[in-house]
C-alpha cells in the first residue's frame, strides 16, 4: 500500500466486509480506498494523496538523458 497504512491492528487478522474476510496483508490501495472510513485499521498517508506525480517535463528529461 502506498496511500494508506495499517494502524490499530493488534490482535486483528483482517476485516469482514461484503461477505468476505479480507486478511490485513491482502489489503491493497484499491481495497483500502473502498474500506477507508469503514474500519479503524486504515489511515491515509498524508504525504501521498494518491495523485500521480506530475510528469517530468520533456526538456528536463532530455537534460537528464544527456548527463547520463
Amino acid at each position: 500500500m502506498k496511500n494508506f497504512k495499517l494502524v490499530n491492528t493488534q490482535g486483528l487478522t483482517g476485516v469482514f466486509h461484503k461477505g468476505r474476510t479480507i486478511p490485513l496483508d491482502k489489503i491493497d490501495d484499491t481495497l483500502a480506498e473502498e474500506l477507508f472510513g469503514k474500519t479503524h485499521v486504515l489511515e491515509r498517508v498524508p504525504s501521498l494523496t494518491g495523485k500521480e506525480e506530475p510528469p517530468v517535463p520533456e526538456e528536463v528529461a532530455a537534460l537528464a538523458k544527456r548527463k547520463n
Partner: protein
Amino acid sequence: MCVRTPIEAIEVDDCPNPGGLTNLHVIRRRDIDSFPDPDADGVTISKPIVPKTGAKFVPWDFATDTGEVNHKSTGEAGNQSITQEANTYVPRGDAKIDAVIQAALNGDFVVAGRDSNGNTRLLGDAFRGVKFEHDYKSGKKGTDKNGTDFKFSGEGFTHVPYYYTAALPV
C-alpha cells in the same frame, strides 16, 4: 426523549430475495471500545465499531441453512419494544465447541449476522447486549441430528437489529 418520526411509504421490489444467514460473528459487548450511533434513518450504522485493543469479532460457523435473524415487537399497547434474536445450528458434539459454549454462558454479546441478501444485521447495541443460550442433543439413532442449537436473544430494544454497512474487525 423519543422523537416522533413521520410514517413514510413502503415499496416492494421484484429482485431475488433469499432467506437465511451466511455468516455469524460474535464479540462480547464489554470488548467494544466505541459503538457508533445509527445514521439519520435510525436503522443503519455506517461507521465502524471499534473493539478494545486485542479484541475482535470472531466467526461462529454453523450448518448451511440453519442461521436466522429475527426481530419482533413485544409488549402491550403503549409499552411496545423490540425483541431481537439469532439462531444457528452447529453440528457435532465436540470438546472445542463445548468449551466455547461453556465460556459464553452469562455473556453479554453483540452479534453480526450476514443474511443471504448481503445485509449485515447487528444484534445488541452500546447499552444492551444479547444473551447466549444453547441446546445440545446427541440424537438416539444413526440418522438423528447430533449437534447444538445456538440462540442469541435480547428484549427491550428501541430499534430493529441495525443494518451495519461498515467493515467488521476480525
